[in-house]
């Protein structure tokens, strides 16, 4: 007899809210249904109310992990629409941040994947070494996440040479540690037993669903926006598109870990070759009427932005499509027929990012109220609820 197992919308194993309904018979998964939308913040709509130069800050908040990818894709769309040139040095800076972001995103996923299959050593290793790249990002941009580097026509800030040099030792450490992680994972018979042949995405299904990024490259399809639509300085760097043919979860692990190594290699080349001087911004004055498309290879696959302009200073239409929106529906091809125990790692193996997929904050009737203000209000409310009028320390002192 078939049974339905609901998972979510809030569940300790999930990092974001989503609701799955697994229909199972004994251990076998017969069907999966998904309900998302718990994170919808209406960013596409919000974006139409902002000027072209403000939008990067909005779309940077589409996703906390790909906080460089969305602004980059948006800027590519605006530059495509207006035929705006980007100075060479700005391209180097953009590409560098993009690759560092890929390293941190892939290591984050590797850790989560380890956690999902109960292999917490991998989780702790991956996340420990991920700190290294977050420190580099903080050094170069001022932030561990949400770097605020992008603007149409260039970048917001220059990176001084001494900071680039300071980042080098970290990249060397990262390289050693990522190699170690790769060997440890691929050598481990437990990982093989657990992940090999699990959740296979066949090449044809991958094409039908329009799957992207590491998910599709692990099914033997060599598509990568960095190679197909070269932006930034990718055509000047020595790197290769990583593919694997197996299409299973293990192949997706392998592709991501090898891409991490490629990203480290590219970051080192960029530091070597970055021009010392030159403008970082072409300072475009306006965006002419028209339309533009920006596609960017985010860590999870192609990030797609469409921008329509009517010649005013705001986009009339801004469509955002995150890679998970295309990758996630492949669960229909990969989960059915597998066991319940494997379903979690299969669902996680596309590296789903719901915040991105939904892009929508409910502030209805409260427009313009600062989040900070809301947070303070909520704290006050809680204080009243628990009868905490003054700070605990003061209370002790007053006794």
């Amino acid at each position, binding site marked *: 007899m078939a049974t339905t197992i609901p998972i979510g919308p809030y569940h300790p194993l999930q990092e974001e809210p989503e609701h799955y309904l697994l229909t199972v018979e004994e251990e076998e998964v017969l069907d999966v249904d998904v*309900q*998302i*939308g718990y994170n*919808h913040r*209406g960013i*596409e*709509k919000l974006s139409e109310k902002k000027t072209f130069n403000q939008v990067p800050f909005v779309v940077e908040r589409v996703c906390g992990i790909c906080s460089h990818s969305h602004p980059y894709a948006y800027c590519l769309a605006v530059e*495509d629409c207006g*035929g705006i040139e980007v100075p060479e040095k700005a391209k180097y800076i953009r590409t560098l941040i993009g690759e560092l972001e890929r390293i941190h995103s892939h290591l984050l996923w590797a850790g989560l994947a380890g956690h999902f299959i109960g292999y917490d050593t991998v989780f702790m290793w991956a996340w420990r070494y991920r700190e290294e790249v977050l420190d580099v990002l903080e050094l170069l941009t001022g932030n561990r996440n949400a770097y605020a580097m992008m603007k149409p026509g260039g970048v917001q800030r220059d990176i001084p040479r001494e900071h680039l040099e300071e980042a080098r030792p970290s990249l060397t450490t990262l390289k050693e540690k990522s190699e170690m992680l790769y060997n440890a994972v691929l050598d481990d018979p437990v990982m093989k037993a657990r992940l090999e042949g699990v959740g296979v995405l066949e090449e044809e*299904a991958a*094409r*039908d*669903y*329009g*799957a992207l990024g590491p998910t599709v490259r692990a099914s033997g399809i060599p*598509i990568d926006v960095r190679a*197909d*639509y*070269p932006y930034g300085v990718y055509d000047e760097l020595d790197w290769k598109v990583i593919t694997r043919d197996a299409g299973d979860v293990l192949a997706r692990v392998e592709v991501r870990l090898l891409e991490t190594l490629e990203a480290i290699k590219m970051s080192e080349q960029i530091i070597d070759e970055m021009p010392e001087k030159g403008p970082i911004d072409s300072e475009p004055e306006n965006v002419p009427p028209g*339309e533009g*498309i920006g*596609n960017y290879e985010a860590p999870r696959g*192609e990030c*797609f932005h*469409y921008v*329509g302009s009517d010649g005013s200073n705001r986009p*009339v*239409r801004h*469509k955002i*499509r995150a890679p998970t*929106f*295309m990758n*996630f*529906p492949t669960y*229909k091809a990969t989960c059915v027929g597998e066991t319940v125990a494997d379903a979690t790692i299969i669902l996680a193996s596309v590296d789903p990012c719901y915040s991105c997929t*939904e892009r*929508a904050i*409910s502030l*209805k*009737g409260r*427009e313009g109220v600062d989040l900070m203000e809301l947070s303070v209000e909520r704290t006050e409310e809680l204080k009243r609820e628990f009868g905490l009028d003054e700070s605990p320390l003061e209370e002790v002192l007053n006794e």
Partner: protein
Amino acid sequence: MNASSFKEELSGRFGWKVGKTEKSSGRLYVNPEPEIFEDMVEFVFKEHGGRLATISCVDEEDLFRLLYHFSLDDRGLMVTIKLPVKKDGNPSTKSIANEIPGAEWIEREIREMFGVDFEGHPAKKRLLKADSVGDEDFPFRKDFDVENLEVD
């Protein structure tokens, strides 16, 4: 160059019905006659391995314009096929989700957010909209009143 050569291929297959096109480096926008729309989608998807990147819906004054973005990855060319959908009455068009499974979620999103119906869609149910938003409220339409939206 890519855009020009692919435009030739489209003209070779569909003649004048390809309609007005615009091209730039790596981009081709096509406005086909609505009667050949499905054939053109099939031509790009099946014969040229076009990957459906997404569908953008644009709310223009008296119509919705659906932009079907297909990426020909091996040529580095993004082909956008435009389809106007009349706004009055019940805006609707045929679903392509039965031929291209990747379109299923995309069409569901547009149906919820813009109220464009996709005939023959295999799963017409909610994906994203909160329960408190009505079936006839379409948040991404230009005339949608964000200020007075009720929330839970």
